[in-house]
């Protein structure tokens, strides 16, 4: 389950915000338009090795933790997004961002949004790849 990645853009001044804000940091405006922001460039990449192999989620169940490749992605609209990335991605790569509902970790009554992305031209294969990790 994945959708095009979006950010909020201030209706008054055009400031692009991610994650969402209440008032615009630039002009103080309170109205936002959701805009597609699914292309960007990777700035840094790391692989997160969990401190603890297993961990208990706030609602009691246990999650086995494995390696997660993570990247810092500057979207073409401006905001920098922390995203899960395929292992093959390197700084400087152009990528496409997706919003992904993660069923394994969704909070009760709240669908958490995870982002992952794929290199341009191969969105489906890479989305599948990253969904299988972590």
């Amino acid at each position, binding site marked *: 389950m994945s959708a095009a990645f979006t950010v909020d853009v201030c209706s008054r001044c055009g400031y692009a915000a991610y994650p969402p804000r209440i008032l615009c940091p630039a002009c103080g405006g309170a109205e936002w338009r959701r805009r597609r922001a699914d292309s960007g460039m990777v700035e840094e990449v790391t692989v997160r090795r969990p401190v603890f192999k297993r961990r208990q989620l706030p609602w009691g169940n246990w999650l086995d*933790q494995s390696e997660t490749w993570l990247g810092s992605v500057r979207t073409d609209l401006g905001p920098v997004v922390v995203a899960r990335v395929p292992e093959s991605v390197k700084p400087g790569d152009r990528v496409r961002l997706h919003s992904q509902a993660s069923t394994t970790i969704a909070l009760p009554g709240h669908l*958490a949004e995870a982002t992952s992305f794929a290199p341009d031209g191969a969105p489906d294969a890479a989305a599948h790849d990253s969904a299988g990790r972590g």
Partner: protein
Amino acid sequence: MTDAVAIVGAAESAYVRHPEVERRTETFLAEAVVGALEDAGIHRDEVDGLGVSSFSLAPDHAIDFAWRMGMRLRWVMEDTNGGASGINLLQHAIRAIEAGDAETVVLCSGDRMEKREFHLMTDRYNRVSRDYLAPLPLNGPNALFSFLTQRHARANGLGREDYACVPIAQRAWAGRNPGAVYRAPMNLEEYMESVPIAPPLTRFDCVPIVSGGDAFVLTTRARAARQARPAVGIRGIRALFNHDQQDSDALTTGFAEIAGELWASAGARPEDLDAAYVYDDYPVMVVCQAVDLGLVQDGDLTRFLRGRLLEDQWPMNTSGGQLSAGQAGAAGGMHGLVEAITQLRGRAGERQVDGAELALVTGYGMVVYKHGACHNAAVLERLG
């Protein structure tokens, strides 16, 4: 600068990696508070102000802790700003004493921080962590500071062996601190080969998670004079929150904006310092803060890291810092203050810095999405 207030005692409960089940957050807070009052020679019943910072005290609050401790108060507050909580509490407590709202205030921070508490803290750190980071999954800020370290290394032409100077130099100090959890000397080879956590960050770039508490006592100058014990004054204190809206690369911190005011209000210059306590959640942040606060002469990072810190063992984070002593949750925001006070009062034992009269302490933290949003700093001096 304040002429009305003095710090008269400080203590830290021993930091432990795996506390016994019966030792709860309030146990560590209480040990630190009792220790600080003993250090000050002040009885509990003279305390009329209490400030608390803790991630894991819930569902209790400062008032519940006060009741458990049998404290009658005229001033109480709680602070939630993590790495900046100690100095934030101090800033408020100074004003309370100056205004006459309280005469003698105890400030404390601490957490029982085992696996379960750690994950509760990181997953529910804030709404953004819960909704945008934890599901990646990313819990805790290691990967975010890996990104920041990579940016900093690229911009300044530094390598892992440069950032290594911070934990290695601090480890040498930790060897003289019986309260530090890592005390064995560390060399460059051990650092370079340590377990990767979020490359380029390894185990020794990340604070060991511990349980513990810190506390200190402040009162009026008049009351302090009656104690006939060493006291510490506050020469300057400045804070800045959310200065960049999380939009910058964070290589320049909020300290750059407040450094001038801080030094002017303190009537001091960075070169006057005898010691510095720079918030050390990650080596890169020590470097960024040191630059922005004017501790790096001519901006020469290599000379600062390899020469001043490593070879000269200039007194920075003389407890070993959080990187060697450990981070006991919110106590991380008070650890540097307690060590600075202990040094300025001449009570640091084997690691005592000779002639320590003027010290800088910084607080940094509360990652709202990509990096810390809270910055504060205080210049402290030995009185009398």
